[in-house]
């Protein structure tokens, strides 16, 4: 039982990261029907932007939580701007081309970011500066670290904020309208190009937050770190029902748990395999995902 609760905590913290990244996949899919394959690499950029922000801000450190907040905001803003650029330069020009064209462009952007990452940041892993000195508590034999708690808490806050934005604001309503029917949204006077850009910016800054949070827990970062996490977050989004915000969160948490449980009770050799097993199972038995409705379109 004790091990189970330990795995639960670990799964929750890993799952929160997947959920943050999965949100970007699902939101962009919602407005553009595009699987943005470059999204995992944006998460990688988030970790690197955070890394450089942490190094630049190092001399001005105040207290751990303010430092962490500053690094995270810096990385989120930088990633948001990068996403704006990617959307304008790569995706908008081919928006009216076929879906396959968009998909190929997305794969191209992904490869480009990975290569640029290796050139600019170097191919060797870097060590993320420690923002929060580790503290641990023990409660009935279950170990809690403050770093894991921060990851879970911050991810939770971000998801609540996103939810408030999407369901309680005028712009959030416009975003839901765009994802339901693009032409009808235009008829309402909504500048849909702006909403689509904004969707990229929000999705990418959430991924950036994920990149920083993961580095608080596991400080080694490298230019290909987005490949596996990106794939898993994609699986999480499909699992929850792509296009569905709650689905992305649910899928992320389930995947995080499943992975940690497999590693804890089975063998850690298989921890990466579980994501793909889930993907195959979901495509076979419930292609629309847990919360998805109707038929899933082929990409």
């Amino acid at each position, binding site marked *: 039982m004790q091990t189970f609760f330990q795995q639960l905590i670990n799964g929750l913290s890993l799952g929160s990261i997947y959920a943050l990244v999965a949100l970007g996949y699902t939101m962009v899919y919602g407005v553009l029907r595009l699987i943005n394959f470059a999204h995992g690499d944006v998460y990688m950029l988030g970790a690197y932007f955070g890394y450089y922000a942490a190094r630049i801000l190092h001399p001005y450190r105040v207290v751990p939580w303010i430092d962490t907040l500053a690094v995270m905001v810096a990385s989120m803003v930088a990633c948001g701007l990068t996403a704006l650029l990617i959307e304008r330069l790569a995706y908008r020009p081919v928006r009216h081309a076929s879906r396959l064209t968009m998909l190929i462009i997305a794969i191209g952007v992904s490869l480009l970011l990975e290569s640029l990452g290796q050139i600019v940041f170097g191919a060797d892993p870097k060590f993320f500066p420690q923002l929060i000195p580790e503290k641990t508590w023990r409660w009935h034999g279950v170990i809690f670290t403050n770093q894991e708690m921060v990851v879970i808490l911050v991810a939770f806050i971000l998801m609540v904020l996103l939810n408030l934005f999407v369901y309680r604001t005028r712009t959030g*309503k416009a975003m839901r309208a765009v994802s*339901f029917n693009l032409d009808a949204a235009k*008829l309402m006077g*909504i*500048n849909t190009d702006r909403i689509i850009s904004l969707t990229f910016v929000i999705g990418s800054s959430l991924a950036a937050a994920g990149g920083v949070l993961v580095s608080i827990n596991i400080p080694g970062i490298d230019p290909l770190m987005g490949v596996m996490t990106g794939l898993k977050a994609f699986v999480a989004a499909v699992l929850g029902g792509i296009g569905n915000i709650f689905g992305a969160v649910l899928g992320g948490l389930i995947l995080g748990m499943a992975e940690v449980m497999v590693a804890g009770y089975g063998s850690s050799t298989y921890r990466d395999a579980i994501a793909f097993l889930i993907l195959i199972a979901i495509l076979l038995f419930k292609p629309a995902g847990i919360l998805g409705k109707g038929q899933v379109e082929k990409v």
Partner: protein
Amino acid sequence: MLSLKGVSTRYGAIQALSDVSLEVAQGGIATLIGANGAGKSTTLRSIMGLAHPHSGDVLFEGKRLNRVPTHRIAALGISLVPEGRAVFANLTVAENLELGGYLQKDRNKLKRDMDHVYEVFPRLKERLAQMAGTLSGGEQQMLAIGRAIMARPRLLLLDEPSLGLAPLMVHVIFDAIARINAEGTTILLVEQNANLALHRSQHAYVLETGRIIMHGPSSVLAQDPRVKEAYLGE
């Protein structure tokens, strides 16, 4: 108020409109009738910038609309109730109406406009918290029209509002259209139900395979032998 001058629109190799010219005068109800695939929806889409004419001009109060993005055209004072209604099914009735008033930033005015919609369609008021997708066809049509008038358009374009509705509901919808018109909104009505459209309008255009083949006062067209034979089934 609105004029199309020699508008031609195609989808790939399909020529949907050829040299369409028409005028909608301020204040009245004009109608565009025609069979399936004649190009009625394409005409409305070409006005709203959802389809792009390759030649000809679309003018609204003297301003050329070609190449103006759809959301700006909406802001100029034209609303379209699209074919098939296109309500936001996964949003509530209230949210759909709020989106209709998306450009209205004054909350008090927004509130007043919503009250106006409830006056025109009392049924919607009872359904505010319901998801639009769960409404009946007639209620969805009410919502689509209500959403469109939330923008206080000066010109309202309606694409087959009677489609798929029971006769009683068609009556309700057309009475509402008459009321909206009486309150000062000019209307361009697209219909396959020519009988209904000719009775409810002052001026009519007949579209056949992308061309305007006839136009004139609705009462005159309703008596025209060719119209009678082809569109009124007499």
